[in-house]
């Protein structure tokens, strides 16, 4: 087959220019800093508060998406109802909708005088400009992951194994819990990890709804932007390295999960 040198050469050069060299330059930048300087930024109180919020809110949002995503995938694969095709097509909306649009729209919905906020506020639920707002934005952007990873696995489950379980005397709950759920487990975990990884780095949809108060509703990516606008390049770089390290660990976990997923179904 021809074209090996041309295509691989182009791939490697383009990958190096756009991705690898800029990324390594960021890592090399940290060597210009002393360790104390680096640590003071990365483990400062404001940074720690931002990790807590970014990781905590991402965890809650990914958990909500795992439960709702499993239910949604089940309903979309197994049940019939009017408008199902349309709903299924809309699931990818958070992938395709620009994050800034999602940000201002969710804010308009959940602000005190907003579409939903005006009903929630009398109940004592303040969503916009609080940590709950961050969770709502991260739930929105992570919504499709679990649905899209579970759907194909659910479609592939042979109804005969459920019938077999029923023949052997299992009731519906038992065969769901013991037969179907274990089959879905790797896909669920993969979806959870993908939604979590996406949420940790998210910026656009959060900055509008969070109110951006230091120590309280400031996510890590926003803290990086704040440092940049103050021309604190060293601080921004240190935080970026902290975030990159987190993403690489997550990427590794996701790869392991997908490998497990494939090993089960190969």
């Amino acid at each position, binding site marked *: 087959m021809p074209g090996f040198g041309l295509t691989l050469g182009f*791939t490697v050069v383009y990958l190096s220019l*756009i991705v690898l060299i800029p990324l390594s330059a960021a890592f090399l930048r940290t060597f210009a800093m002393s360790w104390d300087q680096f640590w003071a930024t990365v483990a400062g109180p404001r940074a720690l508060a931002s990790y807590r919020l970014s990781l905590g809110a991402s965890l809650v949002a990914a958990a909500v998406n795992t439960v709702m995503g499993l239910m949604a995938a089940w309903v979309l694969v197994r049940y019939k109802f009017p408008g199902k095709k349309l709903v299924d097509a809309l699931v990818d909306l958070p992938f395709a909708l620009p*994050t800034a649009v999602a940000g201002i729209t969710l804010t308009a919905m959940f602000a005190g005088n907003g579409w939903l906020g005006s009903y929630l506020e009398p109940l004592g639920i303040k969503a916009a400009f609080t940590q709950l707002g961050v969770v709502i934005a991260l739930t929105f952007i992570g919504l499709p992951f679990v649905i899209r990873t579970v759907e194909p696995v659910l479609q592939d489950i042979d109804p005969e194994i459920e019938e077999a379980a029923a023949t052997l005397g299992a009731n*519906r709950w038992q065969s769901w819990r013991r037969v179907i759920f274990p089959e879905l487990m790797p896909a669920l975990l993969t979806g959870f990890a*993908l939604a979590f990884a996406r949420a940790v780095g998210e910026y656009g949809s959060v900055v509008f709804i969070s109110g951006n108060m230091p120590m309280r509703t400031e996510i890590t990516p926003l803290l990086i932007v704040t440092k940049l606008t103050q021309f604190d390049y060293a601080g921004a770089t240190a935080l970026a390295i902290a975030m990159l390290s987190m993403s690489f660990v997550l990427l590794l976990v996701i790869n392991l999960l997908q490998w497990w997923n494939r090993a089960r179904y190969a």
Partner: protein
Amino acid sequence: MVEPGPLRLSFMEQLKRKITANQRGGAAVNEPRFVRVGLIVAVLFFLGVFLVLPLVVVFVEAFKKGIEVYFASVREPNAAAAIWLTLLTALIAVPANIVFGVAAAWAISKFEFPGKSLLVTLIDLPFSVSPVVSGLIYVLLFGLQGWLGPWLAEHDIKLIFAVPGIVLATMFVTFPFVARELIPLMQAQGNEEEVAARVLGAGGWQIFWRVTLPNIKWGLLYGVILCNARAMGEFGAVSVVSGHIRGLTNTIPLHVEILYNEYNSAGAFAMASLLTVLTLVTLALKSLIDWKSKKNTMLSPPWTTQV
């Protein structure tokens, strides 16, 4: 004496048994009705709040002050400049990533070489980098404080807080889309047709245009529309490198932010509605491709594909 076997049962008896069997089987492999209805209602409520309501909100808020204000907002010179810059950025970044995606998929699916799985993982990298960090790395490389900053300044080349920086950051965040869609597709399709064309005397480009491209066209289109949607809608990465100079380095998403922060809600949502229309067109095309290509391939969004 012969025992009455199943064959000797009366027709009514057989029918009765069949019905009870079906009912019992039904209860064991289907959920009770209240569970089914409950699940459907819960899911539709959740998806309604998170998927349908936002779409309604965008358009209602955009037209809140009337159709004149809407058209004035999108025609105003700064808005027009933002639209133009967004189109220009996509027009450079998307074709670049198409060429890369096709080349990478060709190399990875047609040949065996050491380090292949590492290469696939590296192609994925931009998906796992925060948009803000994606922008930052270019500032660290090309900005005034950056490695190449002083040299670029000496030669009067401005990349950061200028259009080239926006294009580069967009190329980074949309980097894996086409490749990620094509690699699994071409791996699944195998080499046989290309080898046959080769035996019949076709050259490399002929094989690509006549054999490979028709086979991957839906997957390619799928990657391209999703890549384009992200390129036009990217906010975080572009915001870091743009410098927010009105009429010069503002894309549509950045213009949305500026208007919103100035409490010009109708203007912000008018610009946002343009991006929302783009999103809806993207989703419609995606569904169309899903439907067209269902017979031979299973496509999935690049975020969830597995190699």
